[in-house]
């Protein structure tokens, strides 16, 4: 139902979208003809269309808002680069405690390994020196077999044990 307000017109609800298309020049020829036929008979739709056309003229007086300056794209890219940098440093910041813990662990492990290797090497030299001293002085482990004259059989072993006991 078309109605007229105090100041303007209200179109028939069925024709509102059609009228907008008509204003926009987006109406197909057949639709345009049937719409024109309607508002030839309907004063409210005709009035509403005139009113809408006036609004187009009124609002277009202002023109579009001011566009970006020539440096806008470069400014955006600079902002993007800064944000990327910030993000990567934040990401690094998040893993930093774990990374430093890892480094500390690696450093400690290296030190311990180094100490073990050097201790092992030192102990080995010390043992060799003791063996050489024992050979020179003729003292050796009594139960250790003589590498130069190993016992030939079981009897010889028993003889060796017996000799050692006599020596005692």
């Amino acid at each position, binding site marked *: 139902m078309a109605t007229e307000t105090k100041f*303007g017109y209200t179109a028939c609800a069925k024709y509102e*979208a059609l009228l907008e298309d008509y204003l926009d020049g987006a109406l197909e020829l057949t639709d345009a003809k049937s719409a024109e036929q309607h508002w030839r008979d309907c004063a409210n739709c005709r009035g509403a269309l005139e009113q*809408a056309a006036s609004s187009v003229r009124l*609002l*277009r*007086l202002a023109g579009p*808002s001011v566009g970006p300056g020539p440096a806008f*794209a470069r400014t955006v890219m600079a902002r993007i680069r800064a944000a990327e940098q910030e993000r990567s440093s934040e990401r690094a910041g998040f893993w930093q405690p774990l990374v430093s813990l890892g480094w500390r662990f690696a450093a400690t492990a290296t030190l311990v390994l180094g100490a073990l290797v050097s201790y092992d090497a030192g102990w080995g030299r010390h043992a060799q020196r003791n063996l050489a001293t024992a050979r020179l002085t003729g003292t050796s482990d009594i139960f250790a077999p003589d590498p130069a004259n190993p016992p030939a059989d079981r009897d010889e072993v028993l003889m060796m044990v017996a000799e050692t006991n006599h020596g005692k």
Partner: protein
Amino acid sequence: MADVPKSMAASAQALPLSLDRKRKKEEDRELVRLSQDGTEAAFEELVRRHQQRVFALVGGILRRPEDVEDVAQQVFLKAYLGIKRFDQRAAFSTWLYKIAVNECWDYLRKKKVRPLVYEADLSEEQVSRLDGIVSADRPPEGPGARAETREVLDRMLAALPEQDRQLLVLKEMEGFSVQELAEILDLNVNTVKVRLFRARGRIMDVYRRRMDSSGKLAGSRSTQRKG
């Protein structure tokens, strides 16, 4: 040209435009793909191509020139950070404009302001100047006069519901199509058309009231009604 039916003439004129749009969309797709692969220059080209429209959209919603550049930059930054997740099912421009609309609303929410708040009504002088411009039916010349006309129209638009204001500004001042508005604002195309048409009636109501209250329109209105 006189022999060509109206609809065919319209489509003949529209053809190069639609081809141009199609070509631009294809180029955008390629630029998006390159940006997704990490080519910064491709994204910079996308910024150059869409900066004008993003400015218009942000400006149309915020109506605060001092905030537009900052928000527009933020829009492109968000687009850059999210471009790897963009699957290209929609056009890049639609996706970008949706980011812009969301960014505007976030911004307004954070600032806790309406897009535009004018406490004062139009002064007699402003009404008189606007009447002169409307009678002349051509845009005012010079940046100062244009800015003033825009301010007067903004004051009138502020009297409308927010959605009406946005639709009118984006359609008539910033040049967005009905189809684009429907996509950007997540509305049905028909809904946009109906709302736009009703909003036109409302802004003309506001205009006539302003003119009536200053006695400018009384003569012309009575003449119009009689006719």
